[in-house]
């Protein structure tokens, strides 16, 4: 499903080069639930940005669902983000001016769905995350856990092949965090491909497979990474 081969990504902070991704290779199989675990600054968010086609690697190949990202134009990358990837961010990233329903509809607008289909799919997705009775609420009227569930519904509504979750519980209390993780585990059971990024080992253990990242390099075992 996701094939990353020898990915490099270097940032420059002032004159200093930061090797955020240093020869990273990772294969994620369809319907797999992978957790990427590492301390802050280890490069895991950069890895997610590359996997989510928000950022392009300096070198290496990334093949998503059979498409080589290096060959894609800006327009094609937008299409991939729209149809194949659903994002769940640490800070939810919902639009405050819109209701929960409209937020979930948003990716469908860019997929050029008809209004009827859009509302149906958005409602179904909100129903799935247990927010059927909160559709008309603004994000500011919802709790953190509810907001994160709206974000998950948004990722679901677009029928994405891959759900990329970057510290989805990072801004939540433990109870809401557990609810959100239970939802993500449910989605995994329903054959969604999920990549979870976290620094929390407890949460990472819920995944089928854990890879560790430290200083831009991937390790299969936590000892190898020195964690």
């Amino acid at each position, binding site marked *: 499903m996701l094939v990353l081969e020898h990915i490099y990504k270097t940032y420059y902070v002032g004159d200093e080069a930061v090797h955020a991704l240093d020869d990273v290779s990772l294969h994620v199989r369809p319907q797999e639930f992978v957790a990427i675990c590492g301390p802050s600054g280890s490069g895991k968010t950069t890895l997610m*940005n590359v996997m*989510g086609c*928000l*950022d392009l690697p300096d070198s290496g190949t990334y093949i998503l669902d059979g498409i080589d990202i290096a060959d894609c134009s*800006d*327009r094609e990358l*937008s*299409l991939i*983000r*729209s*149809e194949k990837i*659903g*994002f769940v*961010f640490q*800070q939810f*990233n*919902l*639009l405050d*001016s819109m209701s929960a329903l409209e937020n979930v509809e*948003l*990716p469908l*607008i*860019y*997929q*050029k769905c*008809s*209004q009827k289909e859009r509302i149906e799919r958005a409602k179904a997705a909100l129903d799935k995350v247990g927010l059927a009775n909160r559709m008309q609420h603004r994000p500011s009227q919802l709790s953190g856990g509810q907001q994160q569930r709206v974000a998950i519904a*948004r990722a679901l509504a*677009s029928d994405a092949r891959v759900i990329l979750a970057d510290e989805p519980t990072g801004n939540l209390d433990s109870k809401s965090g557990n609810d959100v993780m239970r939802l993500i585990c449910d989605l995994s059971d329903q054959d969604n491909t999920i990549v979870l990024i976290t620094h929390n080992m407890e949460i990472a253990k819920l995944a089928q497979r854990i890879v560790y990242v430290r200083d831009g390099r991937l390790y299969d075992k936590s000892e190898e990474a020195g964690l």
Partner: protein
Amino acid sequence: MTMFFNSLRLALRSTLANKMRSFLTMLGIIIGVMSVIVLVSIAQSTTSSITSAISSMGSDLITVTVTDEDVSVTADDYMVLEDYDSIAGVAPYLTVSSTARYGSNYTTVSAIGVTEEYMDVAGLEMEAGRSIVLSDLEWRTYVAVIGTEVAGDLFESYDVSGKTFTMSGHTFTIVGLLAESGSDTTGSLDSRILIPLTTAERVADSTAVTTCYVKADSANDVTLAQAITEYQMLLLTGDEDSYEVYNMSELLDTLSDVMSTLSLMLGGIAAISLLVGGIGIMNIMLVSVAERTREIGIRKAIGARRSHILLQFLIEACVLSILGGLIGLGLSALGLQIFSLAADMTIAMEWRAAIAALLFCIIIGVVFGSYPAAKASKMTPIDALQRI
């Protein structure tokens, strides 16, 4: 197309979400549109009321004025012009300013000594009674045909036939009332009193008639008739500086030239304020793009293309400018109504100016919205998301 309507809905919503800011941004456009429409409309209405007043005096009318006091031209001298085919009528007239009295009422009038042809040549209509006829001229009778304003001032009634008034020491009997004809640039046309030319000569104690109307046979003959008149006047006076021959249509042409230049200039000045309003829109759109960087990032992350973001901000700029334009249009319609009432004249909205101003608004929305919109669309999703 759904994309367009979604963007439109979104733009309307964000315009309404920041009511104060949107209003202040639109204010520049509103004032610009209002000044264009109101100024041009007033200029056009004034022009058309002046030109219609002038053209009602007849564009086939040629006016002769003897300016040199030493040259004496009599009424009969002018009559040679009648022999030409291109000239339909000749009406020498003599104006005597005087005061007309009736009882304790009095009014300042211009008494015009006229021939029997004057009414026809000058295009005047009778309201009641008869006009000056040939026998009045032969007998130098003290009869008068008066304007409605004179009738109102002296008798406070339009039923004036047979009544008498005194003027310049003579008693005149009223035989007719002129139809109302409003006013022109020289003042009210209804404060005229027509008396026989021969009577006027006696009152003025002079046979020199300094003014004459010459009516061309048709509008096509005006140029020829004017040339003939000029030639005859040269023969009569022997000095081309001692008289003036001019035609209303010339005056009309000059006037409408001046007025259209004037209204263009007014429109142009007002358009500058529209331009300034457009810069205001660009300014606020740049602020809006900066404020909504995170939103742009989110939208891009969930699949918005460059063109989607571009369209969203472009439509938002256009909504601001077009909404401002429409409000400006409404306010100028209202303003013109109020101005019409206050100035006691009808001022029609100049639709061409209104349409031009609205088109200009759309162009402003697109032109001044495209830079901020392009700026927004070119953000990379990662940059946009990280700037919180």
